[in-house]
């Protein structure tokens, strides 16, 4: 076999071998768990620091603007910020820009409130603490005191209580979402008279304190599409609402101009961005451990190295086989 034919065979390698390689490096790191360190960047630190500066008198929006296709990247971002907000008792409004995005919203809150999740928050559904609301108690510390005075105890492993209507509201999907954002600059309740469970939002303490987006401190849009820009166009530019982006890695490059102009507070780009946030949560004792994004970074490291190896091999074969000269002889580039 001549040397050229070896290079030629390398260049024409059956792509199923490439697929197999990617398949292996996507699975193996999950079992080996290298736990390679993730260094944080300014883009993510700015979001973390901003959320960290908020308290129970503030409020944030987490907008689920992604579908199942990108949930591996977007979901950990949303989960990390919700857990951070719950830790600081910052009320979280959750919205979805399309019907399928609402499923992602439900998955995220289910994960945070699931007793099987390490460092979960104990859910208190809206209907269960009606007696406390009827007494006119709206301050969070007083709500917790009244709730625990009724004999309720925080389960083992729970990091705190999550009162529906005080700590979070599942607003969900509403049609023509860009107009919904515009509408919420005047009134959240007008756009969402009920949450996804049919609870009247007008009776929620967090809606009494934050009637419109003008009284909200930040929105994080976790997005797998251009929907994230709606928040800049219709909320940031109209009323000055601070907007943070959580976007997929392939989209992240698109939004650096918004960060540079200050229109966007910060950006979590892909799994890496979510992993950075998880690292900061763990380092500051907000969560007991890192989560799925950090674990996924091992897979991403292995996959990137393999792709780079493929690129190097392809180029070696291309030059060693003399294909660059042939190409030039055939009629140039």
């Amino acid at each position: 076999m001549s040397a050229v034919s070896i290079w030629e065979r390398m260049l024409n390698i059956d792509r199923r071998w490439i697929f197999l390689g990617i398949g292996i490096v996507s699975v193996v790191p999950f079992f080996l768990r290298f736990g390679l360190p993730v260094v944080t960047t300014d883009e993510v630190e700015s979001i973390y620091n901003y959320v960290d500066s908020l308290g129970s008198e503030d409020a944030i929006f987490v907008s689920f603007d992604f579908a199942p296709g990108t949930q591996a990247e977007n979901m950990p971002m949303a989960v990390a910020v919700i857990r951070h907000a719950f830790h600081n008792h910052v009320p979280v409004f959750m919205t979805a820009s399309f019907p399928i995005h609402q499923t992602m919203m439900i998955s995220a809150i289910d994960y945070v409130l699931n007793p099987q999740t390490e460092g979960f928050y104990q859910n208190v559904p809206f209907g269960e603490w009606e007696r406390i609301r009827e007494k006119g108690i709206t301050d969070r510390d007083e709500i917790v005191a009244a709730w625990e005075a009724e004999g309720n105890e925080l389960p083992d492993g729970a990091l705190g209580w999550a009162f529906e209507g005080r700590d979070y509201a599942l607003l969900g999907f509403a049609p023509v979402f860009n107009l919904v954002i515009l509408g919420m600059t005047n009134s959240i309740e007008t756009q969402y008279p009920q949450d996804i469970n049919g609870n009247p939002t007008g009776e929620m303490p967090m809606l009494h304190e934050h009637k419109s987006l003008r009284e909200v401190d930040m929105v994080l849009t976790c997005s797998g599409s251009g929907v994230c820009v709606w928040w800049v166009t219709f909320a940031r530019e109209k009323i000055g609402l601070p907007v943070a982006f959580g976007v997929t890695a392939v989209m992240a490059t698109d939004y650096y101009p918004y960060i540079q102009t200050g229109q966007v507070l910060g950006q979590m780009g892909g799994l890496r961005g979510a992993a950075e946030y998880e690292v900061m949560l763990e380092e500051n004792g907000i969560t007991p451990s890192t989560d799925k994004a950090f674990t996924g970074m091992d897979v991403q490291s292995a996959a990137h190295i393999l792709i780079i190896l493929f690129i190097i091999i392809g180029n070696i074969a291309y030059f060693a086989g003399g294909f660059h000269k042939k190409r030039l002889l055939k009629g140039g580039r």
Partner: protein
Amino acid sequence: MKRTVPLLIVLVGGILMMVQYFIPHQVSQSIFNYYTDWAPIVSSFALILGIGSLTRVHAHKIRRKADNWQYSWAVLIPLYLMPVLGLIWPKSMGGGMDAPSIFHFMYMYIQIPIQATMFSLLAFYIASAAFRAFRAKSALATVLLLAAVVVMLGQVPIGELLGSWFPKLGLWILRYPNLAAKRAIMLGVGFGMLATNLKIIFGVERNWLGGVGK
């Protein structure tokens, strides 16, 4: 008449909404609220048109037995089956949208996994495409290739272990050359959108009328 009325609606509506955005007066706010109440209602009629149009196109394909006409059934059957299961089908027979129901099952265990699978395939195709496309065939291709490798390594923890300059250089590429190029593109697109919008509002661009009244 068929042309004049839509053109007038667009002209008045377009100018009104443009001006309203910059006037923080109560009257202006009322117009805006009125619009945001109406817009979703009007938009829902577009849904009817869309479903009608989609049905017509695929029904036509099936009737003519055009290429891959069988796939048109895959569009039409779920398009009508899902609303029937969710809204009309009796709850005693697995109807409704909430779990447990056939609608919920199909949504959770067919639609969502299909979407996730489709996106997951990207990793495999990107690897294959990178192997074949990233060749140092010219100076510009070499710059692209090197930038790709640096950014890829800079984005993952192993890049930091290989050399702390990988993430720094990767971020520099994203924050400066990438930002400059993106801004140029965005400005171009933005001016283009502004020009197109003004042309539509003032009736210069009339393709959206679909040839009505010609």
